[in-house]
């Protein structure tokens, strides 16, 4: 994220909102593009989207509103009437020096390149574990630029880049079921970081365990969590720590503990 001068449309919108009698105003705009490739056993789909959206929160001491939309924001609105509580907008703070990582500039994965990755995953999975197959594979690759400004002087721009890969697989089952399934959902900054042989091995291991492994008996005691498991544990606790619903959930847990 970097401190910047906001572009004119955003600044015009901010000025228009303040002039309408809403001294507390903040505007956010984002543009992005993404490619999505999906393979199933019988279908293939390639999508390309260009997204453009904005969000405004504004109000005065007697109330506020939030509005968001697609396309270019229009200073004329329509805007909802401010109701409820007043806003508390963040003040600007100095930013630490920051250089964008170089891979932010890497182009999005091409359609052929992406389909090749998904095809090779299917082949390598079948090579790792005979009769294993890819049920569904979804690869998404996207990038975006966003900008925010508010009436307290905050101005910032940021860029984002993310690729995700969802893989759902089936393999030969054990005694209980003729077929077992395993799925992974991964993310990386650049889709080119997904390594199909390693992923195929990982999924083959999961399928083999699902087919042959037994669930442990009820157990207690010390356990050592690998970092990805610890991360999931912490992610599960996150709702307790964010916003008003967190306090409500935490009070419910306290009541249950007592």
């Amino acid at each position: 994220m970097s401190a910047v001068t906001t572009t004119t449309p955003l600044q015009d919108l901010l000025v228009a909102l303040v002039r309408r009698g809403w001294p507390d105003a903040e505007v956010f705009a984002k543009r992005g593009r993404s490619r999505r490739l999906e393979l199933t056993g019988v279908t293939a789909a390639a999508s390309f989207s260009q997204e453009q959206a904005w969000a405004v929160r504004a109000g005065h001491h007697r109330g506020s509103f939030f509005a968001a939309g697609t396309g270019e924001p229009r200073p004329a609105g329509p805007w909802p009437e401010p109701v409820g509580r007043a806003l508390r907008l963040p003040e600007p703070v100095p930013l630490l020096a920051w250089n964008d990582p170089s891979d932010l500039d890497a182009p999005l994965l091409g359609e052929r390149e992406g389909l090749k990755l998904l095809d090779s995953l299917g082949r390598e999975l079948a090579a790792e574990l005979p009769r294993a197959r890819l049920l569904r594979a979804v690869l998404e690759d996207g990038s975006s630029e966003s900008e925010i400004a508010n009436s307290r002087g905050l101005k910032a721009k940021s860029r984002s880049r993310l690729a995700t890969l969802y893989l759902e697989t089936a393999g030969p089952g054990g005694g209980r079921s003729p077929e077992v399934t395993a799925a992974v959902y991964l993310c990386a900054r650049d889709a080119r970081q997904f390594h199909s042989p390693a992923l195929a091995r990982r999924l083959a291991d999961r399928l083999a365990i699902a087919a042959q492994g037994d669930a442990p008996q009820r157990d207690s005691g010390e356990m050592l969590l690998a970092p990805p498991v610890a991360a999931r544990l912490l992610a599960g606790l996150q709702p307790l720590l964010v916003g008003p619903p967190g306090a409500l959930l935490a009070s419910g847990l306290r009541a249950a503990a007592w």
Partner: protein
Amino acid sequence: MPFSALDTAAVARTLSQPEDVVDAYFERKEDVELPPEDEGAGLRVWREEGFAIRLVRAGRTWLAARDTIDGRPFAEALRQVARALPSATYPEPALHPGPAEPRPIPELLEFPGAVTRAVRNHHVGFAIRLTVRRHRRWVQVVGPRLVAGAESETFYSVAAEAAWGRYGALLPRLDAAAAEGVAAAVVALFRARQAPPPAPFQGVAVLAPAAVAVLLHEAVAHALEADLLALAGNPEAAVGVTMGAALLDVLDDPAAAPEGVRRTTDDEGAPVLRRWLLRGGVVEQPLADALWARTSPVLVPGAGRRGSRHLPPGPRSSHLELLPGAVDDADLLAQADGGLFLPAASRGSLDPLSGVLALHLPFARRIRRGGLAETVGPCVLRGRVADLLSRVTALGRAAVPAGAGWCAKGGQKLPVWATAPMLRLDGVELAPDGVPA
């Protein structure tokens, strides 16, 4: 209608591809939210519009979507879908959607107070965080030969959160009956908050219409979606298979959905139909969209739905109907002594490969001497679809609007509606929720 001024004829001319499925999908959405009182800002409004152009050729789909409705991005998206060189030029049709028409929403602002009063009428009092939303959507689909009529939907969603649980509902309107429905549901959750889960149970279960709706959605609708059927083989092979008890007649009929969400065409512009999913327990017509209908003459389009213009459509249900039986509700309970009454399900899931279905119940009631006795805590009804549906032994006489919910299959969040009577299942297994199967 925001799309009345679109030059649909010009759009249709640009799409001319006789051997392929090709269409342009225009949508406008508006969600207005009244957040819980403790969440700072007042009303929250999301308005979006855009389009998608889709080409299906030999089972492969290409789609290009934009967050605006204008001639130039339309021509650019056409070029992308056709995978033509950047130098190729495409016509830019005149696309001028009407302006946003904000509508006053007094019903949204008044609803939390109405729910609070209705809760008090149950002689209890507790704090709940209530989020109320109005959802509006307008759709216009244009094909090379056919321009479907524009469609619109309006409905509401309510989410109630408390320290002891969460309740969500979709509602066709916000009126006194809706407020009482939400209040009764959260009061029932409140009263069940300390009930211990039941021991593993095998026996009779009577499902109220709200729980039947979730059962039908998972066990019949998802199980008969052409794309999920294809995971295990040829979707048309399902036709004629006995999937449940002979008294089960299940339809998907978007045209009979509650007023405000009724449809005459689907999100691909195909006319909807009163689709018999099960007739006498036998599969008659799986859910299909244009893509799957091209794979077999047995599959009929009309059930293509889109959660977003950025994703291709897929076969989904809209409004499920279970035709009523001949048993009074009181008799259903009287014939289920020692069983469990399941008033509502919080969620359901179906593994399309194994056919195993899980229906999660936030609480249940024991049935004793034809009446409802003590409450038991969270439990789950689990079984294979065909086995569960073959255990249906009686249906109530009165089919009622059975509530609705969000379905998020494949990441496309869509509202689904249902009309159903009470239903009795014999010899089913329920386990305390949270215990592995």
